[in-house]
């Protein structure tokens, strides 16, 4: 039984739903490109103070990563409680690691 599954049909309601989802993905992609361009321009233009630029580009990176996780990787969808727990667990350990390594050197 090796029939080709390409003949299977996806019902039109589901197709429309997938299309709506794709539209959201495209909007998040446009936003991510926008955040990236803002971050590069902020650094390349030298117009802003260093104390202001670093937090700005870090926040832009965090927002962009949020879009990546919640839209591109579907963490906003149902049934992603365990993935969220794992990623936030990882982020928690990551923050501790970075804080520890940086503080050792600074003090």
């Amino acid at each position, binding site marked *: *039984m*090796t*029939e*080709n*599954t*390409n003949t*299977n*049909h*996806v*019902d039109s309601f*589901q*197709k429309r739903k*997938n299309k709506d*989802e*794709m539209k959201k*993905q*495209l909007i998040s*992609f446009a936003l*991510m*490109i926008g955040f*990236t361009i803002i*971050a*590069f321009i902020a*650094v*390349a233009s030298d117009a802003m103070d*260093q104390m202001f*630029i*670093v937090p700005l*580009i*870090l926040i*832009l*990176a965090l927002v*962009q*990563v949020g879009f*990546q*996780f919640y839209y*591109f*990787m579907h963490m906003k969808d149902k*049934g992603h409680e*365990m*993935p969220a727990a*794992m*990623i936030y*667990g*990882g*982020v928690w*350990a*990551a*923050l501790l*690691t*970075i*804080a*520890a*390594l*940086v503080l*050792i*050197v600074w003090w």
Partner: protein
Amino acid sequence: MSHDHSLNPETMPQEPEKATLEGRNKFLGLWFFLGGETVLFASFFGTYLALRNSTAGGPASTDIFGLGLVFAMTMILLTSSLTSVYAMYHMKNNDFKKMMLWLGITGLLGISFLALEIYEFAHYIIDYEFTFRSSAFGSAFYTLVGFHGGHVLFGITWLIALMVRNAKRGLNLYNAPKFYTFSLYWHFIDVVWVFIFTVVYLMGRVG
């Protein structure tokens, strides 16, 4: 052959990647892996942040980093993230050929990203004599960015293996989870790159 039949049903379910127990396990397993990867990269980022000013008289980040190449690499990797979203869109619409097409584009973008990264490293080594052994900054830089490049290389190899192995199979409930877990991994590579271009290159330019 009821086993084959259950993997090639008459109508595909809405989420073919999570329709079988094996698929759900792969899905959870990959997210578990990504949680671990987060910690792995965090230790490299922490090391880099701690050592980025320890140049030992060698080149500093403000001397060598240019923004043009990094911007191009960022756009390529971000676009490859979108193309793998398109691949998963076609997977959910049960369109195997279009899924393979978009996966192929994703792979090509990944290869061009890797080519630019190799060019960048060669440029630092030849023109600035900035190597892994130049300074603590050099070691931390090549470890962090090189390990990310290694992940891209692994992802491309994984993708090629998947595409060749399943070229004649068509989409079914057996290989849908394999394609889906690859796309999650590929997005995660882009997540890491967002922090690399921000923390290493942009913050390196600011000083």
